[in-house]
């Protein structure tokens, strides 16, 4: 395993985490600003929207502060998924099969929890 290769993997994991955290923070800040500018807090949906519903609402004309904040939270919850997936790809690039398997095991458990919770 080359040292430079490992630096490459670590850089990618670091980048994945930064993208996840700052884009989710930007969505949450945007949501708070929309609530502040509109001067009223919109009513909470009676049921939690699914990530798919949030995604379609986000790009529709009915987007409001709560939708933006909700999307930011879901993106934040998905950031560790992205980090584990990036690690798996990184270890694959290093041809470190053992840790590709370890990353995949962690990812499958997270995915199992996600599917089990939202089913």
């Amino acid at each position: 395993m080359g040292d430079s290769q490992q630096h490459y993997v670590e850089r990618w994991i670091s980048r994945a985490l930064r993208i996840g955290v700052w884009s989710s923070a930007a969505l949450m800040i945007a949501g708070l600003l929309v609530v502040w500018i509109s001067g009223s807090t919109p009513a909470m949906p009676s049921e939690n929207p699914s990530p798919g519903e949030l995604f379609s609402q986000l790009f529709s004309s009915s987007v409001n502060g709560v939708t933006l904040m909700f999307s930011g939270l879901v993106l934040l919850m998905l950031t560790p998924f992205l980090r584990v997936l990036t690690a798996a790809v990184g270890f694959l690039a290093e041809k470190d099969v053992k840790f590709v398997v370890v990353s995949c095991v962690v990812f499958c458990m997270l995915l199992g929890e996600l599917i089990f919770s939202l089913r």
Partner: protein
Amino acid sequence: MTFSSLLLLFFGGIVVGTMGAMLGLGGGVFLVPFLALVFGLPMHQAIATSILAVIATSSAGAAMNVERHIVNLRLGMVLEIATVIGAIFGGVSANLLSGPVLAKIFAALLLSVSCMMIWGTRHRGPDGTTFQNGAFPGSYKDEATGTVVTYTVKRVPFAMLVSLVAGNISGLLGVGGGIFKVPAMHMISGVPIKAATATSNFMIGVTAAASAFIYFAHGHMNPLIAAPAALGVLSGSFFGVSINRRIRGDALAWVFAVVLLLISLRMFWR
């Protein structure tokens, strides 16, 4: 909810995030009592909000520590198998327990954290007993001394067991669990304290994500509460880390240990 409540959540998040980072505990230990006692939030919602704050602070901190090579990536990934299993069970069992029961378990956790902090100020063992013939070799440059620290990890199964328990506490109570993992990795497995702290912090984001969707599915995540609180804790964690670099001392640990003890009593008789 009024806009002033959102601001209070944000600034409250800054204060508890700063306090948590100053002690290296993460925000959860102070955020859950803040939300439950000051805001009167149900325990499940307070824990769910804390889990989101933990993901945010862990991810932001890990982004820096991974690049600086302080995190032992391979050790972290292996221990995550245990923390994720623990967190899933913790998340499922938390949603089977009532709020008052969770509050009492949380009070017991605060009590043990408080005792560990006091114990830590009185029993400071020799630092830097590293092993060179174990697993997961790691090395990083210690910025304080300018030297390169190399080490390997001993007693990995024990570290996995502690990680399982820490993951369970994370899923059940919404805290990171670093207070248990860091001493175990450092004192039992021979991981230098900086690497142990960074690796633990790296793991808690994934650990928290393992129970986050369980709370989400049960409707415990209120974006109007979680978004400002998570943003506040994230901002506070940056202040806390920079203050932590300048202020160190047992007096601080004692003050916070007493504060945690009082919060613990208040949570117990909530």
